[in-house]
Every structure is written in C-alpha cells, then in structure tokens.
C-alpha cells in the first residue's frame, strides 16, 4: 500500500504537530505553567500518524496514558487539547479530564486512559458495535508493550478473534514500561507472538518507519473491514523522553537512548525518504513546520486566555439523567 503525496503531507503535519505539541508541553512544565501527570510520546509519532491515516470519524480509537499523539492523529483539535491541559473551560473535556482523559467521541476518539490496558476492551467493544450496527467501522486499540501483560489484553483479543470483530490491536513496543525494560518482564521477544493464542493474524512493523506501519496497518484494517477478523500489529519503537515529563531518567543509559534519538527519529527518517524519493519537497515540509509552530503557539495563547470552569459546575454531568 503506497501512500499518496496528499496522505504523506497530512501524515507529516500530524507527526510534526504531535512533536511540537509535546515539546511545547515540556517547556511549559519546566516553566511551572502546567500541572498534572503528562506522558510524552515523542519518538512514537509515526505509528499514530500511519494507523490513523486509514481511519475515518466513525472508526474508533482507544488510547493510553501516552495519548496526545493518538488524539492529534485522530483529528482532535489541538486548541481544545491545549486548553484541556491548562484546565480551562474551553478544553476538549472542559478541563475535567486532563492529559490522561482527553476524548472526543465525535472524532471517534474513545479517550486517553489512565489505566494500563483498559483501552483494549473498549476498542473491542467499538468493533463489536460497528459489526452489529453494520457501520463498516473498525475499533482500534493503541497500547504499550507493558499493557500486553494485562489480563484485559488476553480476554479482549480472545473475544475479538472468536467473534471475528473488525478490530486492530496496535502494540507500541517502546522497550520500556515506566522505568523497567520490557525484557525484564516479558519472556518473549515479540509481543506479536501472543496473537497465536487466539489464532489471530499478526504482523510486526518498524514503528519508526511511517511507510512500513502505513502499509501493514492498511492491510490489517482492510482485512477487518472485509469481515476477516482482527490483527495484532506490533510496532517496534522507542520512547525518546522519560516515562513522564519530569522523569529524571537516571535508570537509562544515555548512550542507548541517543542511538535511537540520533539515528531512528521517525520524523527525520520520513523526511529523508520523501525528499530522496521526490515524494514531497523539503520546502513543503518546512512550510508545514512553520504552520504547525504557529498553530501550537496560538493554541497556548488562546488556552491561557480562556477562563477556568466555575467551581459551581462541580456536580454537573455526573449523570445524563436525574
């Protein structure tokens, strides 16, 4: 599956937006301007961009604590997201959710999630819903290598395979769960191996290579839409930053990280390929960069200018009825 230049342009904009959005957050946290627990996905942008390139608003994505990238790639407005992180009433969740709970059901984003593994059954349910309502949609779970050790992973994949649901399970294997290397807690080399337990289709992609993820996710999603059942797609990647913004990173050898950061940056790899193959011009990318920078700057400005919710709203919307 070969992406068109239009798709590549959108994908680059997505990846650059994720990168700039999170670089800005880190800056804001360092300045003491943002509170809460924030998890940056810098280094993993290609996966979100490539998977979501195949999705429409009636396809649903369930995400994780490291969810900014998935939200942006799924079309959630960055102004709303930024306002959310600032806790403003103009935020995507009116300031009530924060980083770990950004959701936008109209865009098919079922939410970041603070519970590791919890998004996996949610996406499974969206897939069941799509199948029963015959919408043609798919349910996509994005989750980490660590989440594949949760019971919810096992139970969901078994159900999805058993019912041949239109689902895609994207494991972003970044080599770490918080401060613990994946190989300390997972005795198999590839998480994709686990699909066999459910006779499920499995693929492994280079998560730093937009093109590889794009092709494999595309194949899996097409398969799901054809009613041929779910796929477990493992994407090998790396978490460039710490587990959370502020992580002192004492536990990781800098040289190991630098190896990835310097040589395997998904944005750089993308740029090298599209320019060398003449798919997109460097100018084009630079003007996207500028446009993105402007959008992010503007988002911060408008967020900071927006009002906080009123304390009197505390008990609103606990229930839909009564």
């Amino acid at each position, binding site marked *: 599956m070969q992406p068109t230049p239009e798709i590549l342009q959108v994908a680059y904009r997505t990846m650059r937006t994720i990168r700039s959005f999170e670089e800005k957050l880190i800056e804001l946290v360092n300045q003491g301007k943002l509170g809460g627990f924030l998890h940056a996905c810098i280094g993993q942008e290609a996966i979100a961009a490539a998977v979501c390139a195949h999705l429409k608003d009636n396809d649903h994505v369930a995400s994780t604590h490291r969810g900014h990238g998935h939200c942006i790639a799924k079309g959630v407005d960055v102004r709303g997201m930024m306002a959310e992180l600032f806790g403003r009433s103009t935020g995507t969740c009116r300031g009530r959710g924060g980083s770990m709970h950004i959701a936008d059901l109209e865009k098919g984003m079922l939410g970041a999630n603070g519970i590791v593994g919890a998004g996996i059954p949610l996406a499974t349910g969206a897939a069941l819903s799509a199948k029963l309502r015959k919408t043609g949609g798919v349910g996509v779970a994005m989750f980490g290598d660590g989440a594949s050790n949760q019971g919810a992973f096992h139970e969901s994949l078994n159900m999805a395979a058993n019912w041949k649901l239109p689902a895609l399970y994207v494991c972003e294997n970044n080599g770490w769960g918080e401060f613990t290397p994946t190989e300390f807690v997972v005795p198999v080399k590839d998480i994709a191996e686990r699909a066999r337990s459910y006779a499920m289709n499995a693929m492994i992609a280079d998560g730093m290579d937009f093109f590889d993820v794009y092709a494999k996710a595309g194949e899996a999603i097409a398969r799901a839409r054809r009613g041929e059942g779910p796929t477990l797609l493992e994407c090998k990647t790396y978490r460039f930053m710490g587990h959370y913004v502020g992580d002192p990173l004492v536990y990781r050898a800098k040289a190991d990280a630098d190896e990835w950061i310097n040589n395997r940056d998904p944005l750089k790899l993308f740029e090298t390929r599209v320019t060398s193959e003449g798919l997109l011009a460097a100018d084009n990318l630079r003007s996207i960069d500028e446009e993105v920078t402007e959008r992010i700057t503007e988002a911060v400005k408008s967020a900071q200018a927006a009002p906080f919710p009123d304390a009197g709203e505390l008990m609103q919307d606990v*229930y839909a009825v009564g």
Partner: protein
Amino acid sequence: MADQASQTREPREIPTAFAIAEALRIAMASDPTVILMGEDVAGGGRRPEGTDEMGGIMSVTRGLVGDFPSQVLDTPISEMGILGTAVGAAVTGMRPVVELMFMDFIGTCLDPLLNQASKFRYMFGGKARIPLTVRTVTGAGMQAAAQHSQSLYWMTAGIPGLKTVIPSNAADAKGLLLAAIRCDDPVVFCEPKGILFLSTDVPEGDYEVPIGKANIVRAGSDVSLVGMGATVGMALAAAAELERDGISAEVLDLRSLAPLDEEAILTTLAKTGRLVVVDEATPRCGIASDVAALCVDKGFDLLNGPVRRVTAAMCPVPFTRVLEEAYMPSTARILEAVRGLL
C-alpha cells in the same frame, strides 16, 4: 407507564426470574441496539437437534436466543473483557445488558465500572452517554458459600457516576430493569437470590419503575423499617408481627441504592421518629450506614431514638446452614431491634 400496574386486570403471578426475562424480551424487541452479553446467557447458543439451551446458571434468559438470535451473545469466561467490551459498545451506539453471573465475581472486572463507565461522562466534559446495564445475582441463603453469596452492591453504590438498583419483588424487577436498560447512565441491576424464584403479580406489557425513587410498601406510624431487595419481605413479615402487638410499622423499599431517595427516608423518619434499616450486606461501608448517617445529619431533629442497623455479620458467608442463618438478617432480628427501640 408505571401506573399501568394499577389498572384493573387479571392478576398474573410469575416469579422474578420470569419477570426479568419479560423485561429483556420487551427491551430487545423495542430496540435493536439492546444486546444481552454474558457467560451462558444463551446456554451456548444454537444447539444440535434434540437439545435445548440453559439460559444462564439461573435459567433466567432461557429461550431468548431463539427469538433474538443476533442480540444474545454468549461470551468466554472473561468478565473484564466482557464488561470492558460492553462499555466500548455502549459509548458507540449500543445499549448492552451484561449478565455478571454472581456479583461476587466483581473482583475480576471492577475497573470497567470503577474507572471507565462511571467516569466517562464527567471526565469527558459531559459529552458521553453510557447506556450500560449490568445484571447480577446477589445474596445468601442458598448455601452457595463465601464466594457465591455476597451482597456487594455497596461497592457499586459508592462509585459516583454509577446507579445501583435492587427490586424486592417480580413486578418491580420488570419495571426497574426496563428503566435501567433505557437509562443513558450505567446501572447495576441486582437480582437477589431471596426473591428470584418468588412470584408476585406482574403487569403485562411495557412499563418502567423510576430509578431513584423509594416506595412505601406498607404505611405505619410508630417505627420505620427501611429495606431493600430480599430484606423488604423480612421487614413486611416483621411489620405484620408487630401489628399483633399493636405497633404500627411503616416499611420503605429503597429500590434504588444509588441515587438514594433521601427525601423518602426523611419523610418516613419524620412520621415515626424511629428507624431500623435492614440490609443483606455486611455492615461496614454500606447502605445501612448511609441511611443511618443521613438520619443523624439531615434528620437529627426528627429522631426519637437510635437508628439500628440489621445487617449480615461482618464475616465471610459461611457454608453450613446453621452459620449461614446466623449470618443473615432475619425477621426475628428486625423484631428484636424494633423492640429495643420502643
């Protein structure tokens, strides 16, 4: 529609289990997005010639899969997966009813209720509907022992964003379940063992019993007995006994454990000044304490004496009959509590 119950018609006594099935049937027929999911709810689905399905361990859902083949889904034994999947389906256009075989199993699948279904609407800024119903069997009395006899509704009643209801009779079961299924909030619907196979008069057709409203099942003036689920029957029996001693007991059936009908509780307290709350659950952190705490807070000036809690004992549910009986609340223990107050 609730008043349909009071129209003149032939009385029709059916057990609670059948009333529940009737509600499921009406709900699925009237809305194709209503699906029933759970272990063995179809008894394994379509069978070879000459066999029949079970319809769940209590046979409550027997016969439904035949009439609603695409709406009844047998699942693996994967409670976390089932509930999480149901939440995902609920926020994307379905109206799932999950059967959690016994509420004791909630320890395998609490997260989708605790951190997902209950919080989405609030956390997402008011932008989600979660029309999910969880049906689950509660209570002791069948020698089902420590892991199949608990009344854990206090766990869900204590979680903001969930609703928890419990019927005390077949007619309420039908109407409350219909209301739960059609509610856009996640509702836990408890099916107490003590009433599942008891019959009461159940109206035909489609009606709802409103969530959040308690019900005076017997009027009285000397003491208020507040019950829920299977304890309403115990309270009524106690009231009948007290009447012989010239004591007039009012019996309030909570029906809804969350939200709690505070007004109804304070109203009956205002009438009698004395209150005993009867709960099948263990005493700590439960509905009985909430009722008592309400009385001593907003109802302090109405109180003519202590508020007593008649509950299960603070221990695991024992298997052997003699201990299980000692464990459970009973009419005798209600009488003892009332007599201590007067």
